[in-house]
Structure formats: structure tokens, C-alpha cells
């Protein structure tokens, strides 16, 4: 439990949704915005995160995605800005 295991910054999209209602106090982006559960290559479990740089209607279960990091890190989960489709 105490060893760090390096995983990839690429992964597979297990599921997704596009939120279309606004609740400004809790939402990181104005709707419509996409959320997904991504299983990183090398990881045993998934992580929920935002999806970006993608046509909302083009998102598919099983898509390969890649993490996009912020230039300036704040120690926040959102230091990963979102996951975008992985170009093959």
C-alpha cells in the first residue's frame, strides 16, 4: 500500500456523460460539459474526470484518451485539466 506505482497518462474511457444543467456553485465548467471514468493503462481502477477537446456527440465508451496537464500546478485534482482523445 505504501509503494508508488507509475501508471501511464493514457487510458480507456469506461463510461461518460454530458451534464446539461447548470449548478454554478459546484460545476468546474459551464454546461454542457463531459465527465467520464477513465482506466489509465497500468491502473487497476478507474478515475472520474473531465473530458475536453472533443466533440460531445463523438464521445464513445472504449475511446482511448490522454491526460492534459495544466502548465502551472496547484496541488489540485484539476491540475489535470481534462482527458482528450488520444490520437493514434
Amino acid at each position, binding site marked *: 500500500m505504501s509503494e508508488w506505482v507509475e501508471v501511464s497518462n493514457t487510458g480507456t474511457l469506461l463510461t461518460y*456523460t454530458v451534464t446539461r444543467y447548470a449548478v454554478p456553485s459546484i460545476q468546474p465548467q459551464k454546461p454542457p460539459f463531459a465527465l467520464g471514468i477513465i482506466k489509465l493503462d497500468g491502473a487497476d481502477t478507474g478515475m472520474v474526470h*473531465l473530458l475536453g477537446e472533443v466533440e460531445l456527440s463523438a464521445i464513445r*465508451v472504449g475511446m482511448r484518451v490522454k491526460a492534459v496537464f495544466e502548465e502551472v500546478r496547484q496541488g489540485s485534482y484539476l491540475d489535470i485539466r481534462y482527458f482528450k482523445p488520444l490520437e493514434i
Partner: protein
Amino acid sequence: MDRVGIIGIAQTKYARYNPASHAELAYEVTVRALEDAGLTIEDIDNTVTVCNDFWDGRTISCMTITEATGSHRVPTTNVEGDGTYGALMGLMHLLSGIHEIALVVAQSKVSEGIPSVITNAMFDPVYERVLGLDAINSAALQMRSYMSKYGISEEQCARVSVKNHKNAKANPYAHLPMDITVDDVLKSRVLADPIKLLDTSPISDGACAIIMARERTAKKRHARPIWIRGVGHCTDLYHLGDRDLTEAPALALAAKKAYKMAGIHNPLKQIDVAEVYDAFSYMELMWIESLGFCEPGHAGEIVDSGMTEMNGALPVNPSGGVLAAHAVQVAGLARIAEVVLQLRGEAASRQVEGARVGLAHGIEGACGQGHCVFILEK
């Protein structure tokens, strides 16, 4: 297990807004459950309240319904969780041998507060809350996952909504009795794909109370106790990414325990009516699979076949279920109350003929993280 019988029940009508306060709602169902049981408040020797601080907007909110539930006189415990867990606590109070008659009261005014903000707070503050997750879009992640694995269609999920809103027309307590079609559901506003407005339960204010007693007292004080034959509960992992959202192993385990206690080997044959927690249309499909009413992935065919309709082999949610009325934390206790009505033969125009054994189910947490199952018998 010693037999414990439910001898009193009451529900308020569920509505988008009820001007009554939390305490007034609790008082209404307390008085009416006592009337239903033929008891007075002095007969109650322990209580369980079901209140949640976030939904009530007060710290230790259960304290504010002390007088309304007569809890200032007796040992009382609060359960912050679905009403089925409140009933479970009441059962445990009685099985301890220390108490005879328990009053369980659940109340909630979902009209107060913003459900998205409250349910966002369910999630991990570092890894999940910041994403704007709430009850609806997390359920959408589960619905997509489940549909994708098994090829369940939006139409099949919509059929659950059509059935339950129609069933609700026969339930005087229901918030949303409606005649709708599959097409109406498919055309309703998309909230978070694939969840549409008519796939979603409403915001409801309401309350429910049940009174249960140990066998010797139940038999002495009431003509028709409805017996608790089995109960089981189990909770799945917390982080959405750690779970397989296409299945409900916690429900399967909870059901297994409840079935074992109740001597149920063949749920389809032995259960006459079921009230399950359909917070969203797809959930009824997932839950009936984990309850063993059909194989995993086959609930779509089941709803298509009409098996769970009022005139089907195993009616599910004759009350209209949670899709027709959703007072959070109350709704699971309401499922128990509805099954009691069915088994007493008092369900009027929503009665399942000849019902002798019923199943009541409640959930808590995101995407049905926790499940509690009761088997009741006439």
C-alpha cells in the same frame, strides 16, 4: 430470528412542496401510525428517527423532531440513511430483547435546499466533488455503463418510467401519477446523457412512519401484524472508479442474506410483490437483476415482456415507486409501508391480488452504493 411484526404505518401525500415543517410532517405520520396500530404514544418504548443534517439544513437535525415523534420520553436513535436502515435499527432495538414496540419515523423536505449541491457533497472532496458530480450525472455514468455492457436500450429504461407513473395513478400518496408514453420519455429534456427528465425521480417533501413490535406484543395488540421474515444489507466500494457500475454486488449479497433468513430459494415463485428503489428508470432494471428476478443483463427483456406490470407474474412498484415520489431518506421506509398495505390486502386499486410475501428495498449513496432488503410476510 424472533418474529417482529409491523402493526402500524402512515405516509403523507408526497408533493413538490409541503408547507408543513419537518416537525409537523413527523408529527402527522406519528399520530396516524399510532391510530393505524390502535396505540397511543405511551405504548411506544423506543424510537428511531431518520433525518439527515445536509437535507434538513441543520446540525444534528434529528433533535428538532424529538417532541413531534414523542422521542423525549424513550430511548431514541437517529439513522442518517435511507428509511430501510431506520427500520433495520428498529428491528435491532426489538431483537435486543430490551424493547417491545418501536416507532420509526422518516421525514424530508427536498424542496428546501439544492439537491445537486447536497448530493455533490456525497463525493470525495479532493478527487470527485471538484468535477461537479452529483446524484444525476453520477447515475448517468452508471446508466451508460450498464446499457453499454448489456445492450439495454433507452426505450427499455423508459418503459419502467411509463409503468411506474401509470401505477402511481392508483396511489393516493404519489406525487407524480401520470399517463406517459415511451416516446414522451425519450423526448423529455436531457439532463445528463442518457438520463432524461422522465427517467428521473422528482423532488418531493414527505414523511413515513412504521410501528413494529415483538411477536408476543404484536399478536396481543394487533389483528394483522405483517411479519419481517428476512433482512439483509450490504454496501459497495465508495469511489465510483473502484466499482463495476454495471452490477450491484452489494444488492446481490443483501438479497442473499434476506432470502436465506426468509427461506426464499426461488424469488420469482415465492415473492408476490416487490417495491424497489427506482431513483432513476434504469435502476429498476439493475436492481431486479441483482435480486435474482432474472439473469444479469436480461432485465430489459423482462420489462418488455410485462412480467413486472400490475398484471404480470411479479409486479414491481405497484405504488409507482420512487420515480413517482422521492422524499429522500423516506422513500425506502415508504417501500416497506407499501408492501405492508399489499400484504394486509389494504392497497385498494393498486392491490396485487393474493399477495402473501413481499420484498421492500432501499438504497443509499451514489449509484446505489448501499442496499437494504426486507422480506415481509402475511
